């Protein structure tokens, strides 16, 4: 039982590290991106501009934030 709990804990820890790691803003950015994609899926003209822009904004914000922490 203990080993199962330990394995589940390690599994959860792996996914937390993979998805959130030391840049939680990128995880939030991805959620915003997916939500926007689902909302704009059938509005091609807007989606083609807005979706890459969301990625650029969150990446820039994360890089600026990382500068202060490194």
């Amino acid at each position, binding site marked *: 039982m203990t080993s199962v709990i330990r394995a589940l804990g390690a599994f959860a820890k792996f996914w937390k590290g993979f998805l959130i790691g030391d840049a939680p803003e990128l995880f939030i950015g991805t959620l915003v991106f997916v939500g926007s994609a689902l909302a704009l*899926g059938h509005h091609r003209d807007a989606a083609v501009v807005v979706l890459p822009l969301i990625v650029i904004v969150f990446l820039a914000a994360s*890089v600026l934030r990382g*500068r202060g922490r490194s």
Partner: protein
Amino acid sequence: MTTSTVVLALAVFGASAVEMVEALTIVTAAGVTRGWRSALEGSAAAALVLAALVIAVGVPLARLVPINVLRVVIGALLLVLGLDWLRKAVLRASGHKALHDEDAIYAKTVADLSDGSAEAREGAGAGSWRHARRDATGFTVAFKGVFLEGMEVVLIVITLGAGSGHLALAAAAAAAAAVVVSIAGYLVARQLSEVPENAMKLGVGVMLTSFGVFWVGEGSGLRWPGSDLMILVLVAVFAATAAVLSLAMRRIGPARRAAAADVGNP
């Protein structure tokens, strides 16, 4: 072969090569200090477990989950991974984060392993193959090194492969990278620090991010202009963004050049 398959193969090859360089550093350190037999056996065992994971998870995923759901989930995972690689590569390129120093990692691993018994080192014949005995520490260190570095490769192979329906191609690209890096590692011995790891990581980060954006869009019902060719446009857009961010970060504030080598952060 379509544009997306070429970019897919390049992305998997690049990502695998970067991770394999990191794994090779640990395996080389284990081989030199504890004996090549155990280090190579540990690496081979880890590679087998990773290959089994690709088959066990990737094949059912590609067959059972509806393609649009798969593309949104997989695209989101690629986006998280790609953006994280891009962020670190930009910070490293602009001097705000220490470069990943393979020499330092090698030296640290050798020092850690050398703390073991002298008997083990003698048994290993100081790295010689012919007199090598099995050494549990060397096996474990090599296994963990290859397995942990390879987990990210497995995720990339499964996500890119299953999402595009080219799981075999993705796995083959990863295997080719492992072979190329192993041969290069054998030829250059310990000069792994010569590998332009950050530039590779930046390139792969751009490709993973582009695939992530493309697939989440496709899975959400978006028909990208130019279809697969849009991936190349996204690659160009994100590469330009990374270049502009690197330049801007060099100019912003006093560029705090990281003095210490980064030996613990992928």
